[in-house]
């Protein structure tokens, strides 16, 4: 059974078509990297999958763990096990990371008919997961992302992912704005969460992240479609040659 099955997805925002027939199959446990030049639709894909209403789906289908994803509102997709690590995580002043996560964890557990965690167990979980991304106790108590550095925000995203234990995680340019050390920490966190039951969509510009989070498949997104797929070698090829050769290939095929 596929974890994620995208068939011919088309989406637009404010009359501008961005995704023009994107298809992708992701099995449980797989890590797929999505690369592509600016404006190709990478972030749009993430937003559409997560359920951002500004984007209108005009065609195609998406099945998530056997269920119709497009039919679910954003919060239900999250509760079903879809997680998006945002490229630019927002700040929520006055709302502590702890309370925020406690509420989120609670909703997801409720959705699956599980009992709520006791305060003690919740704190234990926090301690365990924050260690994965070297996020010290202080940050867990601060307001969500308020006053966090870029690196801390990204680590907070992975911390939240660890806490919510999703089936499918979409990392939207998680490496942007990170220095080498922060990158390593984030990647280690993600790797620690890899499992045969969990899939990842890693959206990135740069091959470097993929040295740390080694993908099973690499896809190139160009003008709203996946135009090339391969293994991690493809990423290295892109690093070396850029995107022009792919663009040419596509133009030639369409001519």
């Amino acid at each position, binding site marked *: 059974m596929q974890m994620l099955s995208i068939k011919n997805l088309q989406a637009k925002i404010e009359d501008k078509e961005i995704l023009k027939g994107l298809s992708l199959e992701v099995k449980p446990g797989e890590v797929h990297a999505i690369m592509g030049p600016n404006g190709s639709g990478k972030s749009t894909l993430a937003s559409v999958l997560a*359920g951002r209403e500004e984007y209108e789906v005009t065609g195609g289908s998406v099945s998530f763990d056997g269920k119709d994803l497009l039919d679910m509102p*954003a919060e239900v*997709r999250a509760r079903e096990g879809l997680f998006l690590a945002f490229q630019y995580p*927002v700040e*929520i002043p006055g709302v502590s990371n702890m309370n*925020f996560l406690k*509420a989120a964890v609670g909703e997801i557990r409720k959705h699956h008919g599980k009992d709520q965690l006791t305060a003690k167990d919740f704190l234990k979980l926090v301690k365990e997961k924050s260690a994965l991304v070297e996020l010290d106790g202080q940050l867990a108590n601060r307001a969500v992302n308020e006053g966090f550095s870029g690196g801390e925000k990204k680590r907070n995203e992975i911390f939240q992912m660890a806490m919510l234990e999703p089936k499918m995680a979409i990392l939207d340019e998680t490496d942007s704005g990170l220095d080498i050390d922060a990158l390593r920490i984030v990647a280690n966190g993600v790797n620690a969460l890899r499992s045969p039951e969990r899939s990842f969509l890693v959206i990135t510009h740069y091959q470097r992240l993929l040295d740390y989070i080694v993908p099973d498949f690499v896809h190139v997104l160009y003008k709203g479609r996946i135009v090339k797929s391969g293994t991690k070698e493809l990423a290295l090829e892109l690093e070396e040659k850029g995107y022009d050769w792919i663009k040419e290939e596509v133009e030639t095929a369409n001519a």
Partner: protein
Amino acid sequence: MAYNGDELLDNITSKEYEFGFTTNIESDKAPAGLNEDIIRMISAKKEEPEWLLTWRLEAFSIWKKMTEPEWAHVSYVKPDFQAISYYSAPKKKQTLNSIDELDPELRKTMDKLGISLEEQKRLHGVAVDFVMDSVSVATSFKEKLGELGIIFCSMSDAIKEHPELVRKYLGTIVPRTDNFYAALNSAVFTDGSFCYIPKGVKCPMELSTYFRINEGGTGQFERTLVVADEGSFVSYLEGCTAPQRDENQLHAAVVELIAHQNAEIKYSTVQNWYPGDKEGKGGVFNFVTKRGMCEGDHSKISWTQVETGSAITWKYPSCILKGDHSIGEFYSVAVTNNYQQADTGTKMVHIGRNTKSTIISKGISAGKSQNSYRGLVQINKGAENSRNFSQCDSLLMSDRCGAHTFPYIEVKNKSSKVEHEATTSKIGEDQIFYCLQRGLDEEQAISMIVNGYAKEVLNKLPMEFAVEAQKLLAISLEGSVG
């Protein structure tokens, strides 16, 4: 679920005002109109001493010479003062030894309001003075407080049992000449609370009063006086609800606080008067004068308010920092939705040396409402080394509401330090989506974000009130992001 403007606004305005119900109790109601006879009638019904009747009549003649002020950033159809009845009391007035003796209808009303006196008696130790329309109904814990020398009773009772105390302080902090509505209140006030804490006594429980307007057309003119003698402490809670009405109901209360040397008064309010319907029809006019005098050195007065109701809110709980080293604080969350209007804030007047004041005001506007903060920080010439910190934040929840700030700062002393910060923000769709993507629905997201915004103020409330306040905030703002 969508969270675009129109759908949400529909959602929130369809939430019925929970407390829209009335109590069917025979009521003793005066004919409409305001003149000397009505005032004499009120005074006679309450068996008041001569000096108070004279005081009232003087206030009435002062009021007649005044004109209604128009400088607030609010617009409304002026009340017809002759069309209001100034006295309404439930007929069966009785003295109770225990809660069980209370009229069952009234008892039911209190239960509906969520006040279970028995519960409170057992668990919280809160003494409750319930005011139904213009007359106080039950005062519990009178004996226990009496042992400590604490007086906590209705204003009517205080006038009878402690006339010398009332006479000493009444009108000294808010004189009858202060403003149009204070003069009116002084002439026709019917009840309220009186509290006196003797020297060195820390009141062991929170003192609380619930107000309720019942009859259509009655104005509520509550008069409250809290006196904290040297070295004493009291935490006072005021919470209000009112039933649904078509005609506007005027609420012009006066609250005077006096803190002597080393004394502290903490005054908290959660206000949920009927705000009018979603077309802006009806609702309570809340025109209140509240002022605290830090009379003695090292005295302290804190005002904390959560205002979510009323069609129009017009009030400036203030502090006069007369004693050296005295402290004044004002923490406020004011919510307006639909067509509500608020012009509220505070005045901190620094007279003594080394005085300190803190103002934290959080305005939340939604719907088509208008929310204004108006504050005065006045540092007099002799207020050496005084300090003020003010923070006024506005949160806009729709693109049709307004938030306004009118800060006044008058400094006449060079050694003082005055800081003022202000922010204006909107609940971003990004913030909401972030919450949605973590499994929270839109209602939970807004509730969380708004409570986070108001946290600084909500933290100042006594526990029981804080919980009620959080619920109130969430209810008032469901689905209002747009």
